[in-house]
């Protein structure tokens, strides 16, 4: 039989998932010799042996990658045989290629089995991991990925672990490998003292079992944990976070326990079980928990254990409230000291001495309009890049927005989005932003030469961009929303619908209900919601009463209380007043008008309450409302008659539910009519929906259904959030297009 040699290059997420050991195992099984080497995140394989065996190797590499790996390309070149005696794992080497590195990986099925097996030497070991699972990006110091360059470097392996590392099993070359004897140990600290190891685990279980609220050090930061059935505990947890209303996510021991409360589609199950283990927003069927958890919400944020510690806790205690530990608006705690400061308010802090190098919140995903939609892209996804069909001539930094801050580093054909960072008004978020940026730049060796940022004169990200770079491209907020979708689908031309709360317009007014004709790097504002004066600045985004008073004034409705009267006079005097076409404020105003909710204690609260109410009314029972179009140079969607009609209908006794449903329907119809008009004008039949308002599932699903019924191709973001967390990708893409045109 002929003896051949192949040189194989594998591109994709191949570091930290046990890829080299996997290749070695395959090769040995096929009786091939050669070597596998990691060159800065690109795997190089030299294999020699009979041709059929080589072909089988290639087939396996392409079709059965190990858990956690994501293969983009397997390239083959013929080489001359060297008659090597065995197959070896060669040392890592630096290279100029741009590396890919895996995100943190959830506990795999094998480790899960071991940790629950009393006969296993890692029984109840909270930090169990193997080549296929465990922390990765959160503990990575530098590439290439070796134990010495991670937060594991301080733990010297015991002889047994060393044997496993050198051996042929699942832990061959597992960089995070450790055990009870040699790895990080659990510490449980209360005001009474400090326990370690097994005793700590027992005390932690006991505390949670008796209704305690504890902070637990997870993968990307501390989490606050308590029983969802204990109202007092959940209330205390809310007080610590300073979060009045926002629903909490619940971690379940396993899929069947989730299925008992929520309905799940195939796609939702796949998401819940994926190695990223995100929080998935599921429609509730039943809610046995304290109303303090997520009482008012149609959805429950659900996730499965992604560390052994989570597994042990939920296995013993059942579902647990698990939420990031931080006061609302502040970044997640990553240092033991930060959590211990709160010890007197808690029943204990469970931690360990392994350092968290990158703060990462739990990611949030929902399935809407038939596909998974990113709500918060963080642990389990970062630092995975988004691949474009085009190539950046020079590395570039996209600053993202200010409210759900997150930057993106672009190089080659890739955009690396950072994790969700929070509101840049917080000094600690600003610090984390800089920290995350310099870490990502260092790890991936990306040196951006220019920056792209938002136009808004008040954005910290814009200030920062100008501080760091001589050359800065400023792009319009809603243009970036649509460009983010263009980047994902490689669109050159699209009719973009960007509906959100606030973005700074090119005319100095506040935009937020926009129809943009996007061609290449350019856009035209082809339509928008009626521009009206809105009083109150940032407060109007919280206090829906201010938005309502402003809409009433615009609609020519008389004020109905002293406060509305005052606001109307302020509007007439132009005091703290801006001109705005915001869709977010229209939702707020409707919510307040219908008496649903009139204050946003967290972002979108009023709109979510309005959506929940609409969901309780069948579509056909919606009260017919209308948003007339004025087709001039730009199409104006006039929201004023809608406000007047809704106010009248309320007087005539129409139910708020019927009006809430009718409002969603009217808006969806007006959006589609506008698109049809623009298609007639420009012949473009592709439509993209972006902006935080489309996080509203009723609006998104009604719009996409109507848009498709009317013969459009519709594009919705998948890999990036639809809200401001997604604009960094759009900014990067516009930077690329502008650069190509220049």
């Amino acid at each position, binding site marked *: 039989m002929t003896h051949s040699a192949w040189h194989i290059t594998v591109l994709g997420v191949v570091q930290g998932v046990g890829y080299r050991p996997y290749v070695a195992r395959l090769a040995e099984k096929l009786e091939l010799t050669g070597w596998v080497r990691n060159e800065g995140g690109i795997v190089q394989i030299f294999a020699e042996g009979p041709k059929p065996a080589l072909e089988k190797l290639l087939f396996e590499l392409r079709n059965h990658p190990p858990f956690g790996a994501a293969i983009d390309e397997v390239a083959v070149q013929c080489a001359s045989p060297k008659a090597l005696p065995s197959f070896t794992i060669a040392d890592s080497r630096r290279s100029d290629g741009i590396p890919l590195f895996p995100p943190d990986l959830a506990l795999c099925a094998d480790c899960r089995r071991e940790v629950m097996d009393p006969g296993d030497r890692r029984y109840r070991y909270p930090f169990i991991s193997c080549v296929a699972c465990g922390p990765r990006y959160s503990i990575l110091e530098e590439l290439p990925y070796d134990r010495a360059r991670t937060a594991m470097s301080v733990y010297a392996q015991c002889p047994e672990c060393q044997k496993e590392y050198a051996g042929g099993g699942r832990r061959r070359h597992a960089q995070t490998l450790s055990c009870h004897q040699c790895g990080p140990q659990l510490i449980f600290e209360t005001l009474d003292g400090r326990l370690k190891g097994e005793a700590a685990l027992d005390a932690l279980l006991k505390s949670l079992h008796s209704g305690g609220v504890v902070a637990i050090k997870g993968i990307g930061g501390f989490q606050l944990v308590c029983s969802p059935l204990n109202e007092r505990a959940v209330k205390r947890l809310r007080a610590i976070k300073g979060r009045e209303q926002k629903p909490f996510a619940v971690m379940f021991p396993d899929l069947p326990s989730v299925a008992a409360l929520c309905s799940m589609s195939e796609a939702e199950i796949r998401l819940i079980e994926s190695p990223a283990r995100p929080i998935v927003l599921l429609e509730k069927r039943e809610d046995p928990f304290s109303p303090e958890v997520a009482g008012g919400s149609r959805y429950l944020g659900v996730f499965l254990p992604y560390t052994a510690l989570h597994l042990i806790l939920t296995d013993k205690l059942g579902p647990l409230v698990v939420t990031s530990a931080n*006061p609302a608006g502040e970044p997640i705690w990553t240092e033991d000291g930060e959590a211990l400061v709160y010890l007197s308010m808690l029943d204990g802090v469970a931690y360990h001495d392994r350092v968290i190098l990158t703060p990462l919140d739990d990611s949030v995903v929902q399935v809407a309009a038939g596909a998974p939609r990113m709500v918060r892209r963080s642990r389990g996804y970062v630092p995975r890049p988004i691949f474009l069909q085009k190539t950046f001539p020079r590395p570039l930094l996209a600053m993202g927005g200010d409210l*759900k801050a997150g930057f993106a580093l672009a190089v080659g054909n890739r955009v690396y989005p950072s994790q969700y960072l929070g509101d840049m008004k917080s*000094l600690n978020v600003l610090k984390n932003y800089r920290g995350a940026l310099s870490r990502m730049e260092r790890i991936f060796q990306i040196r951006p030469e220019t920056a792209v940022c938002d136009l*808004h*004169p008040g954005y910290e990200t814009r200030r920062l961009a100008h501080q760091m770079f001589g050359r800065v491209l400023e792009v319009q907020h809603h243009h970036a929303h649509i460009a983010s979708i263009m980047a994902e689908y490689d669109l050159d031309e699209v009719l973009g619908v960007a509906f959100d709360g606030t973005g700074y317009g090119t005319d100095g007014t506040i935009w937020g209900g926009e129809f943009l004709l996007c061609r290449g790097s350019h856009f035209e504002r082809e339509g928008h919601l009626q521009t009206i004066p809105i009083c*109150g600045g940032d407060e109007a985004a919280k206090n829906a009463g*201010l938005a309502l008073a402003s809409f009433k004034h615009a609609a020519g409705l008389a004020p109905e209380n002293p406060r509305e009267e005052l606001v109307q006079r302020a509007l007439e005097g132009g*005091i703290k007043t801006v001109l705005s076409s915001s869709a977010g404020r229209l939702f707020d105003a409707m919510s307040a008008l219908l008496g649903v909710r009139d204050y946003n204690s967290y972002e979108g609260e009023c709109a979510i309450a309005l959506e929940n109410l609409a969901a309780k009314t069948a579509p056909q029972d919606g009260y017919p409302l209308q948003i007339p179009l004025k087709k001039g140079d730009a199409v104006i969607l006039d929201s004023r008659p809608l406000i007047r009609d809704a106010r009248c209908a309320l007087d005539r006794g129409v139910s708020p539910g019927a009006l809430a449903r009718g409002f969603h329907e009217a808006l969806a119809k007006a959006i589609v009519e506008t698109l049809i008009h623009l298609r007639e004008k420009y012949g473009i039949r592709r439509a993209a929906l972006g902006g935080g308002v489309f996080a509203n599932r009723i609006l998104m699903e009604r719009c996409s259904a109507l848009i498709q019924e009317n013969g459009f191709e519709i594009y919705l973001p998948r890999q990036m959030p639809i809200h401001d967390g997604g604009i960094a990708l759009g900014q990067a893409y516009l930077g690329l297009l502008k650069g190509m045109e220049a």
Partner: protein
Amino acid sequence: MKITLAHGSGGETTRALIDQLFVRQFTNPALDSLGDCARVQGFKRLAVTTDSFVVTPLFFPGGDIGKLSVCGTVNDLAMGLAAPRYLTCGFILEEGLELDALERVAASMAKTARKAGVVVVAGDTKVVEGRGGLYINTAGVGEILADFCPMAPGDAILLSGTLGDHHAAILSSRLNVQNAIESDCAPLHVMVQRLVEGGIRVKALRDVTRGGLATILNELAGTHTLRIEDAALPVSPEVCGLSGLLGLDPLYMANEGKMVAIVDGRDADKALDLLRTSPYGERAVQIGRVTVRNEAPVVLQTALGGSRVLGVLYGEGLPRIC
């Protein structure tokens, strides 16, 4: 009687207006000579400033444009560690202005000037077409009393009283809201003088006017970070109520009688005592500290333990939140 274009003709009517209104109100030897310029006593080191005043309405609770125009310039001099000495004033009157209103403004200016220890030594009047408006420019000369010491980490940031009063008063009268809010319009030179006499090592002074506390702190920060505490900021309940209704932030609202003094940390208590026993400084408090430069020039410590970057005012009411 109303102002007409004849009052600005330079002839008999003009002369009568100056003699019977301005000279009568501001009477002093330098002005009364009515020469082309005032010839006055000099000092070794001078501070000079000018400011123009445009405000609607002309009269508001706690003050009027006249009082404002004197205090504004007096305070600008005081903020340069100078004792105000001379003032000049230029009036631009719009046709149709009530003579009576002008008289009241002039009287208010004269009264405020006497209180502030400045002499109005020269003036000018012009009349333009319009709708009865009134604009004033004042220029001031002061005598420098002391020099600033260089700012350093550990210095204390003091505020002489409640925030937002002037802004809220003007808004209330523009919106026709009945409330007890009055402008805090006042001269601050005595406070400054006492700090100097008390041997306080003053690092920086600024009156809290347009743009509010947040904006002026950003201007003062230089290469340092100014950390202030939310809980320490004094705001009167009335101002708090009104600003809450309209979404205004007292940190960005104007005062006309408040100042920020950055003093050596070791002098903080003494400086506070001096401020509190001075006119218009009863509610003086320490609001924060100077620290080494952090992430931002100005940082606000919130009650919940968070810290927030405090930027400059970037446009009245321009929202950021999505």
